[in-house]
């Protein structure tokens, strides 16, 4: 039993660190570290650099462009990237749709889509949630009717992150309305430029517009874009949802935010002294740091358990629960640290290129919006209530 990295792991870590130092564009890093609005091109610049290095989808099988890393290497990579302020790779292609195509797609799909996912030519988004189906995903109603060698798709998806700049969407559609709800669903790949698709941004309460509604009105989709078999889409969706959850704890990003919180609390003053020196505020930061330390080890333990070839199980719900709580509380403490200066709403200060004098300290503009935006973390990707259901039912047999 030892927590120190092996010599090889340490060397790998240094390799990753130096790659980031040498390549991460300074303006992208600045946006990530300061929570500014990220556009398609911000993500893609980093994506292409990773692609050139062969690190953009390290978890894929080597023959499809993966890196053949161990779970520990993946963790090191993700941790280093997050702490250094590299943007995440948009997960919809590399982490979600790609593995489904690799596992269940036909040869044409593999040859056509996988290279474009890797290179960044195709940015993907995910068409799962619908207005009527939140936690109860299988109740979806967007339908696809086969006509000759096409499907005609009608319906609506929602909460679709990145749809406003995505090239493709992978969609769950109902192909057999008569079947039981899980059994009439298919998995369809749709070009976002197809006529009949409308994207409407959803503004969230923090004022940002990262998510969208996507409307499908008589959208004609070639039948060759069906993944696997018709009406088996639920199986592929479950594979996708159960896959790749080691990053779910978001430990690296939280470590970065903790560091920022400490800087802010040292800079803010209370009665002439740093807020970080006030026993009350200091205790809150410390309590959160302890939780994060524990989560990091819990995450590592689960990664280590995967080395034996076991996939991530319901245990990843533990990581999601604690991870989301920590992220939310970090944003909460940053906002608290600002005191009255959390109040000014400076939406424009969150856009790149804005260089007027900020109201209050330069980190003020992001504080409250981040807190509001982060409330989503315990809602999306399976709400915290769903995660507890998973633990109770799948781990504990209740």
């Amino acid at each position: 039993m030892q927590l120190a990295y092996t010599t090889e792991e340490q060397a790998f870590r240094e390799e990753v660190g130096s790659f980031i130092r040498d390549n991460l564009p300074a303006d992208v890093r600045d946006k990530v570290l300061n929570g500014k609005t990220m556009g398609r091109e911000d993500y893609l610049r980093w994506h292409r650099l990773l692609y050139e290095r062969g690190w953009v989808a390290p978890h894929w099988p080597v023959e499809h462009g993966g890196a053949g890393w161990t779970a520990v290497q993946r963790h090191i990579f993700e941790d280093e990237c997050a702490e250094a302020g590299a943007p995440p790779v948009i997960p919809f292609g590399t982490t979600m749709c790609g593995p489904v195509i690799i596992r269940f797609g036909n040869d044409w799909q593999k040859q056509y889509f996988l290279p474009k996912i890797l290179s960044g030519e195709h940015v993907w988004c995910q068409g799962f949630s619908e207005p009527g189906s939140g936690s109860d995903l299988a109740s979806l109603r967007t339908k696809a009717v086969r006509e000759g060698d096409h499907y005609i798709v009608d319906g609506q998806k929602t909460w679709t992150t990145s749809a406003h700049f995505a090239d493709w969407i992978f969609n769950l559609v109902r192909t057999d309305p008569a079947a039981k709800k899980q059994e009439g669903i298919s998995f369809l790949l749709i070009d976002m430029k197809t006529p009949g698709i409308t994207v409407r941004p959803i503004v969230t309460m923090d004022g940002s517009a990262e998510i969208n509604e996507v409307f499908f009105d008589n959208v004609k989709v070639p039948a060759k874009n069906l993944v696997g078999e018709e009406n088996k889409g639920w199986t592929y969706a479950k594979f996708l949802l159960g896959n790749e959850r080691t990053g779910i704890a978001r430990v690296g990003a939280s470590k970065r935010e903790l560091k920022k919180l400490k800087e802010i609390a040292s800079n803010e003053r209370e009665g002439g002294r740093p807020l970080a020196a006030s026993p009350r505020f200091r205790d809150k930061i410390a309590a959160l740091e302890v939780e994060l330390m524990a989560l990091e080890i819990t995450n590592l333990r689960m990664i280590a358990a995967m080395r034996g070839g076991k996939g991530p199980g319901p245990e990843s719900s533990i990581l999601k629960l604690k991870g989301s709580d920590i992220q939310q509380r970090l944003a909460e403490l940053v906002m608290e640290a600002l005191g009255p200066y959390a109040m000014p709403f400076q939406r424009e200060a969150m856009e790149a290129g804005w260089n007027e004098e900020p109201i209050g300290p330069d980190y003020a503009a992001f504080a409250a919006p981040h807190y509001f935006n982060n409330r989503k973390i315990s809602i999306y990707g399976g709400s915290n209530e769903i995660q507890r259901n998973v633990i109770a039912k799948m781990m504990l047999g209740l």
Partner: protein
Amino acid sequence: MDFDFSEEQRLLDETVRRLVKDEYDIVKRKSYIAAPEGFSRKLWARYAELGLLGLPFAESEGGFGGSAVETMIVMESFGRGLVVEPYLAAIVLGAGLVSLAGSAAQKRAILPQVASGKRLLAFAHGERQSRYALADVETTASREGGGWVLDGRKGVVLNGDSADTLIVSARSAGTSRERRGITMFLVDTKAKGVGIRGYPTVDGLRAAEVTLESVRVAGDAVLGEPDGAYPVIEHAVDRALAALCAEAVGIMETLNAVTLDYLKTRKQFGVPIGAFQALQHRMADMVVEHEQAKSMAMLAALSADLTDVAERRRVISAAKVQIGKSGRFVGQQSIQLHGGIGMTEEYLAGHYFKRLTMIEQSFGDTDHHLNRFAEVTLPAG
């Protein structure tokens, strides 16, 4: 002991409830916010007609002689509807300070204009370094001839960009953070040297950064006793805190109502989500928190003008602590129970949540008031 309103109070309650119900929803509110001053002048005039703007000061001063209980009644309804007009800034704080500290001449000159809606006041007090400490004033006031010269900066001045007159606190004696040595001045916002940068706040209201560069005011611009403004400021802010507690209680009431409604109507897995016990229990806890908050808002209103200052501090700070904790729970959980829809700008819950959150950070957050409370109940040593 009783918790009943008087006949007049019941009438006031009904009037304000009806007004808010008729004039406020999330779409109308957006249109009020879109106005240059960030609120509806038309509604402001209605409030004046109904006597609301003269509520907290004496009839002899041109007002209606209401107590903090009347303010509570107004603010609770304003919370229910998420009203954006500057009642807290201009009436509770602004007119409150004039009423508490002003000379007869000042009151005569200002308060009737306030009551009629013709003049707006704002309290320019907090500064970048002061956080929530009321005595942390570094803006300076120096005597010059029979008048004064003011220099400094004031931050997050509520509705500072729509005010006609600012009440500016400045250090006329003593050292930074000393209670003694603070003086208040009435300053015309158009006076030379006054710079105002207005902006929206995250909860849909307005505030401003104010700069004072060699602003010259006459001797009769002093509001209250020179060097002795601190007790008055503390009293006015305690009233504002009581008002904020009432507003927060109104907000929680609405949030609980819409969340309960959502639990009953939103279906997942073939049943209303309110059939799930974990959500039922959460909702039950939200109701408990609202009741506890409401109790303390009442106590705060009944204590906002106590002559025993230590007791007033104790109760007001306790109320703010309770409202902070209850509000955080109710706010966060109302969003959580709504799921995705609760995150969106077009749904009402998020707006209530944001205002509730900012109330917690107004005039001292939960930590600040827990400390102020403990200084009375558990004096150190």
